[in-house]
């Protein structure tokens, strides 16, 4: 009762990074709230998820295993969480803001009539005073996210409904093993008690999942382009620079929407969050939506024609000018100086 639950995604026997990141966050929130951290795994062919999950400081790991539970479909996974949450009454439930979490979370929150905040960039514990009702709420979960295209930051709370649910993007929280010998328990749930045959009405008949070709999250140098790059052709300059420096190419949402770069390259609140050694922002104005995904980069170079572009306030180096002139020069002088 009143614990923190994290729904863990498993693909091919491996627990998703975003789930492990949420376990680390969940552990620190549960320390603050003096409650337990519990995890839920729903799937089939699960090998050794215990040893992947419990070291993050998980007190109870609920496992429900059935070959029909993999690959993920909405209804059976939702049925498990809805019933389990009704029994266990968690105060907080977290999941990844992944295609699965964003499909599952709303379904569960609707059934339980509990609020859900999507794509949080930060989670904190705090109090809330409802002056109208003259009520003080202790230890609520502040679900913090950019909103309105990133022009504002909103603190969302669920004062009265439980669990307080939130989804968080991959890479936003840090992932840290607490103790490889952490004494967590495993609770295996009986499938028939949670899922019925009608839950399997939607069937996955074919599936092509690719291992991620791009590893933007892991790149130590990222050359990223925005709408200001102007065209798909101009993006080639960014690829050239990235190739020379040994980095990857990223893009802002505006550039992806305009078709300059593929969706997988999107950096920001609704893309990947990155923390490279060097982030070179080309033709990116720097809306909060984008900043949320890159502001923790160690060094930032901003290349922009607008000397007052908002991105400049984050930058260590601001280069004002035309990127079609600047990028070839960067390549040239990099080569000259590394000879």
């Amino acid at each position: 009762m009143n614990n923190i639950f994290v729904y863990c995604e498993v693909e091919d026997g491996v627990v998703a990074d975003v789930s492990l990141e949420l376990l680390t966050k969940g552990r620190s929130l549960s320390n603050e709230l003096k409650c337990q951290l519990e995890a839920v795994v729903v799937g089939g062919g699960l090998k050794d998820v215990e040893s992947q999950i419990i070291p993050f400081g998980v007190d109870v790991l609920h496992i429900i295993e059935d070959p029909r539970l993999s690959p993920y479909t909405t209804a059976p996974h939702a049925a498990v969480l809805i019933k389990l949450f009704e029994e266990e009454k968690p105060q907080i439930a977290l999941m990844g803001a992944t295609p699965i979490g964003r499909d599952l979370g709303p379904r569960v929150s609707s059934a339980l009539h509990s609020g859900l905040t999507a794509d949080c960039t930060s989670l904190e514990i705090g109090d809330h005073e409802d002056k109208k009702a003259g009520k003080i709420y202790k230890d609520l979960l502040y679900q913090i996210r950019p909103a309105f295209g990133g022009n504002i930051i909103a603190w969302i709370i669920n004062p009265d409904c439980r669990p307080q649910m939130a989804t968080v993007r991959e890479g936003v929280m840090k992932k840290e093993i607490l103790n490889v010998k952490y004494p967590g328990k495993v609770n295996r749930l009986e499938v028939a008690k949670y899922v019925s045959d009608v839950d399997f009405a939607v069937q996955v008949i074919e599936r092509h999942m690719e291992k991620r070709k791009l590893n933007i999250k892991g790149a130590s140098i990222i050359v990223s382009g925005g709408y200001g790059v102007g065209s798909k052709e101009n993006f080639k300059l960014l690829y050239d620079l990235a190739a020379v420096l040994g980095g990857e190419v990223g893009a802002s949402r505006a550039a992806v929407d305009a078709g300059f770069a593929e969706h997988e390259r999107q950096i920001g609140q609704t893309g990947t969050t990155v923390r490279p050694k060097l982030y070179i922002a080309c033709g990116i104005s720097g809306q909060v939506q984008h900043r949320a995904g890159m502001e923790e980069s160690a060094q930032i170079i901003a290349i922009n024609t607008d000397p007052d572009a908002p991105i400049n306030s984050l930058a260590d180096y601001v280069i004002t000018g035309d990127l079609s002139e600047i990028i070839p020069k960067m390549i040239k002088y990099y080569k000259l100086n590394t000879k």
Partner: protein
Amino acid sequence: MKGLRIIVLAKQVPDTRNVGKDAMKADGTVNRAALPAIFNPEDLNALELALRLKDENPGTTVTVLTMGPGRAAEIIREGLYRGADGGVLLTDRAFAGSDTLATSYALSQAIREMGEFDLIIAGRQAIDGDTAQVGPQVAEKMGLPQVTYVEAVLKVEKTKMTVRRRLDNGVETVKAPLPLVLTVNSSAPDCRSRNAKLLMKYKHARTVTERQEATEDYLFLYDSRPFLNIQEMTVNEIKSTPDQLGLAGSPTKVKRIENVVLQAKDAKRLTAADEGINDLMKELIDSHVIG
């Protein structure tokens, strides 16, 4: 096959993608009036999917349902110009302040008043909130299965359909029973543009409130051309309990809003001049950031 009865869920949204300098007021708050109101982009993808089903399955009807203020009737007209057969505007002060859950509740109660249907199609998410919650929550409230992130319908049978989903790192082909809720990605085909004939046919389509406020001379048309009536539903036309609506029906509350204030770092400033860029590259190499 006798055709499908399709409801498209659509939202009128401020165009947050084009936030210009005048979009922020002097006090730092968002100037919503300065942002154009548009048909939510992925809802247009949803509409196109519905219209393609109509093209391929004679007898199919497409109805656009939207919840919003009176001016949201604009996107119903946009739907009619592109090939929808009708529209419903769900509008009432009682819905003000709704979060995704209260919105889903109101929409699902309106859908219950709209008669039988085979398919509900919505865009994956709206650009003003990016939550992607309303589609799945409507599905849950209607007790229907959902398939999210759809980009194409591959096959329609009498009691089921097969669709292709686009995920971050792959595709899935999924078979699901009807009736069904689909949410559609931007990877689905773009919506067709307005059809000139339909534009002529529907340009005077109005809700009852718009007709009451209108000063136009076209009022005589509405009796002889019933297709020009955009149905308006208020809280009185749906069955609902007040504690599920609007602010009261919204578990999530906004505690605080902060406008984004950008504080400048002490940055080194350069231009495209060779010397500065040479120095920059040297500095980065020397400090082992690159190289």
